[in-house]
């Protein structure tokens, strides 16, 4: 039994790999629980009325796509499905965030549901971090052109959306690095209702804003994305991955409990660790 205390890490990794891949190939359909904050995130978008104006930011880098990609895809699918809701999409974090939006998000949504320039605009990546955020929040014409090089004055939506003051909802899909900066510059100075999707590690950061009443809903990691997909009725990669997530969690909990039982009994019987 004390051999468990010196278990080769590769055995643990192998078991985890099996637990990850098996449900992806043979879905188990394990039960899912919808968290309050996920429901609020969903409800904030679902309750948008025709004519509502939304600003979205997608600021996740390539490495986080596995965890946050499903969040982004589910969110933009939901937005494209909402008739009459108009939005501006922008990225501030890095240039490849805008590339990810173009190549990975737009290829998954039904773009025929909204007319470009009238119901949605892609501003692309704006260089300048906080300065750019602050300038953009004050004046949406700041970039002068959209992501495709079209002058903004030629796009009809820009007559309705001039600054953050005109916005009804702010949605951000962020890694954990830029949440504070983004919230500080964009929705908070203008008192705009906000919902945020982030990595599971970033949820405590966003929770401080929930407590303060500045953020209403959170999607946390792959689990949050899966719950959101369930609520929107559009199952995707996140729901498929949820079984793997559950199994790995349970395995690790069981492993560490068993190892500690062995550790305590070995110690109390005078054995060596």
């Amino acid at each position, binding site marked *: 039994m004390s051999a468990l205390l010196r278990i080769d890490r590769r055995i643990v990794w192998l078991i985890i790999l099996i637990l990850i891949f098996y449900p992806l190939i043979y879905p188990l359909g394990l039960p899912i629980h919808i968290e309050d904050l996920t429901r609020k995130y969903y409800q904030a978008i679902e309750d948008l009325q025709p004519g509502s104006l939304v600003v979205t930011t997608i600021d996740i*880098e390539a490495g986080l796509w596995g965890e946050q990609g499903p969040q982004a895809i589910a969110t933009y699918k939901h937005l494209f499905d909402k008739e009459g809701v108009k939005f501006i999409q922008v990225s501030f974090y*890095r240039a490849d965030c805008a590339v990810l939006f173009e190549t990975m998000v737009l290829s998954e949504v039904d773009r025929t549901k909204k007319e470009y320039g009238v119901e949605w605009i892609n501003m692309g990546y704006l260089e300048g*971090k906080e300065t750019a955020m602050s300038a953009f929040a004050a004046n949406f014409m700041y970039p002068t052109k959209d992501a495709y090089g079209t002058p903004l004055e030629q796009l009809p939506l820009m007559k309705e959306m001039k600054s953050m003051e005109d916005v009804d909802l702010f949605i951000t899909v962020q890694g954990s*690095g830029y949440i504070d*900066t983004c919230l500080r510059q964009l929705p908070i100075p203008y008192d705009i209702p906000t919902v945020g999707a982030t990595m599971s*590690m*970033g949820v405590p*950061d966003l929770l401080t804003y929930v407590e303060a009443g500045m953020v209403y809903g959170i999607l946390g990691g792959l689990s949050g994305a899966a719950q959101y997909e369930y609520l929107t009725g559009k199952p995707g990669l996140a729901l498929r991955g949820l079984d793997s997530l559950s199994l790995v969690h349970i395995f690790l909990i069981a492993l560490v409990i068993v190892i500690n039982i062995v550790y305590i009994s070995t110690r109390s019987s005078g054995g060596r660790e």
Partner: protein
Amino acid sequence: MLIMLVTIIALYYYIGEVKKGKEVSMRAIPGFDAIPEAVGRAAELGRPVHYTPGYTLGGLYNPQMGPGVMAGLVILGEVASYTARLGVPIYVTLAQPEAVPLVEETLKIAYRAENREVPPNATRFISTEQYAYAAGVLSSFLEERPGASILMGFFWSEAMQFAEGGSYIGAMQIGGTSSPSQIPFFIASCDYTLIGEELFAAKGYIDKEPASLGSLLGLDLLRAILIGLTILLWLSGNAGIQGLINILKT
């Protein structure tokens, strides 16, 4: 703005007091005390010391992450002076190209003070991309097999990879970051950890200069004011008095 002004005044006042001879007692920060031990261990093993100040988005210009990396560069001066003294090679892996001249200058001065040459390839810019940087550092672990790995700055998820990678090759590790989400990983895998503000207190702790110590005292005063204000706000909020809260909101 009031808090900023209070901070500046407090710093000036306490720097003056310490210069006049005020005694300052600091609690021990094991992470800093372990730096000579880590360098000595690398010397005994005949292996180099690895140092990295972490990763930022947008380079040192980033207002949230830049100061953490800058603090790491300050600590590098101390580490380099130890490695120069003991003749231990050091290599610094960077994710910020604009930090390359800073690091080169720091190493040059530290080694010149001990009449030694800076080890070849000591300053290594890896990449501005997070995981390319992580992969570069991990591959350097496998090639160089450092005896000590000092991770001081701002880190993201690569913190876990560096800490475990260093543990895998048997390096003694000292980790310090101002990133709250990565502290648990350093605590789990490093031999010594610096948490949050300890990183920024490095200069005061190590060189004990009046200016550095005085600024720490000034920040302690500010901390006390903020704690008092928090308690006051909590009491007034519970009592239903919104006046103070409204004043601070403006």
